[in-house]
């Protein structure tokens, strides 16, 4: 695993990538991307036992599925900086003829992506299928997935959540980005879901809570705990409490930046708060 300073530098650089990507095309989703930056950085730089080169079947390695595909900026940045494709390609985000579509897709052959996502609520089912394939292949590696908290309003999730526990799919770690926000406002206003912990536990999952999801060390520690809970007959859920827009003060604690890009001036402010570390693309 890389040392903490290197990962902290990577977090800051990924934030810069996110801001610059969405600013350039005046579209995209910076809020949730910034909130999940520490999670992605930790996942791809230590937590997952992954291969350096990309193969679709993912046999013999841990694999990851992003269900809330709109936070593609953080996914693309972390994939590029993990070496799946060149960081220069980040400059093509959302442009015509790009492999970096607004929402992630396998359609353009971008290494690192195993399923299209964007229409919400589908990723956990796909992750479950991949987890079952690993069992059939006697592959002891894990399947990771990420979902928004608002996304859990989609009913298909609960079909998958029910199935996973009933069938002892214990090689999956599904993380919920609990930022409490969705497009129309706070999740507790739009459609309150009550206690996610109680819900997952009632459905038979093991729940691990990471209360400081934007603290890199806490994320690494929490995910290690989650990993230690796999292989024990139950699927594992991580409730990752994050702050939407984390790292850019004016984007924090609001849903306003869910799907809005910063203007020139705002970009400068955001970048000034995250001084270049590993080099811009």
């Amino acid at each position, binding site marked *: 695993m890389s040392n903490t300073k290197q990962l902290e530098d990577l977090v800051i650089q990924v934030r810069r990538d996110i801001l610059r990507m969405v600013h350039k095309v005046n579209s995209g989703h910076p809020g949730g991307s910034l909130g999940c930056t520490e999670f992605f950085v930790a996942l791809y730089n230590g937590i997952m036992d992954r291969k350096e080169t990309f193969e679709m079947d993912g046999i013999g390695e841990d694999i990851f599925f992003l269900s809330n595909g709109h936070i593609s900026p953080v996914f693309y940045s972390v994939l590029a900086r993990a070496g799946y494709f060149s960081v220069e390609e980040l400059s093509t985000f959302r442009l015509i003829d790009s492999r970096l579509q607004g929402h992630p897709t396998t359609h353009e052959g971008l290494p690192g992506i195993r*399923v*299209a996502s964007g*229409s919400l609520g589908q990723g956990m*089912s*796909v992750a479950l299928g991949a*987890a079952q394939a690993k069992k059939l*292949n006697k592959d002891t590696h894990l399947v990771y997935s990420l979902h928004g908290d608002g996304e859990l309003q989609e009913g298909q999730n609960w079909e998958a959540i029910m199935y996973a526990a009933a069938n002892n799919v214990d090689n999956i770690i599904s993380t919920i980005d609990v930022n409490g926000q969705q497009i129309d406002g706070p999740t507790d206003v739009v459609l309150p879901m009550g206690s996610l912990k109680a819900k997952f536990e009632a459905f038979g999952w093991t729940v691990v809570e990471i209360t400081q999801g934007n603290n890199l060390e806490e994320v690494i520690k929490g995910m290690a705990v989650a990993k230690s809970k796999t292989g024990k007959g139950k699927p594992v859920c991580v409730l990752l409490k994050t702050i939407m827009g984390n790292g850019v003060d004016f984007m924090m604690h609001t849903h306003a930046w869910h799907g809005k890009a910063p203007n020139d001036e705002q970009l400068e402010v955001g970048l000034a708060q995250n001084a270049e570390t590993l080099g811009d693309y």
Partner: protein
Amino acid sequence: MEGIGRLMKTYTNTGNKDTRSGFGAGLTELGKTNENVVALCADLIGSLKMDDFKKNHPERFFQVGIAEANMIGMAAGLTIGGKIPFTGTFANFSTGRVYDQIRQSVAYSDKNVKICASHAGLTLGEDGATHQILEDIGLMKMLPGMTVINTCDYNQTKAATIAIADHHGPVYLRFGRPSVPNFTPEDQTFEIGKALHLTEGSDVTIVATGHLVWEALEAAKALNDQGISAEVIDIHTIKPLDEQAILTSIKKTGCIVTAEEHNYLGGLGESVARVLAQHQPTPQEFVATQDTFGESGTPAQLMNKYGLNSEAIVKAAKKVVTRK
């Protein structure tokens, strides 16, 4: 004109059988021959005839419960580990209910999932319109990259089930509930996208799919007796469509009837009409439901009421020859 009857190739019904049992038999065969084949079912194992596969390969069988969306997503995920998933439920729940899941997780994601759908169309019978989907061919053929197959009898369904395992890419395989004549060869090799010329004829082309293929053969006999020579083509693959087979036939006959257990909007008929409009504008009549839902009744009553039998095909053929 009497001579035509003696010349026409005839087909023998070797005994009525349901097409869904052909699917079950094909799946059983695949269980033995292809270890990557896995099957998923949403609480309809008996209806889909998946019992044998489940019994022989419990580790490769996934009962998902009444949760079709999760089934489609899981199937997409299983392909990532190199598996070839066959999903089974009624046509209605295989398509309309899970359209967005198929669109994003399967078709757009280029996943090798075989969506196998029984109880398609009116012949589902007494359960009525909630279960009788007549829009599924249209829904599925519009998805980029999706292959759409509608088989006509037990033997063809079995052969198609086996064949699609070797085709890389998403497939929609549509079949039915009732026992219908089984008349295609037991030992056939199924070729995706290749139309089958069943009878030679010179006055009218009848292009049929699914349960309407046998009805087309019956219609051809009746037409033959009335001095009209009909060429019957079995289009089991609606997408990709065997355009050449259709164009070659209409060059000879100059008119065409399409027959399907589906809405005339979005079905085989419209696919054929596009080919004709682009290459060889030709009079066409549509034997299909007329933008309507079905209702309860026996399969035969429904096919009669909604004009999807040999009599309806004869009527359409007689009309279309006058339009040449």
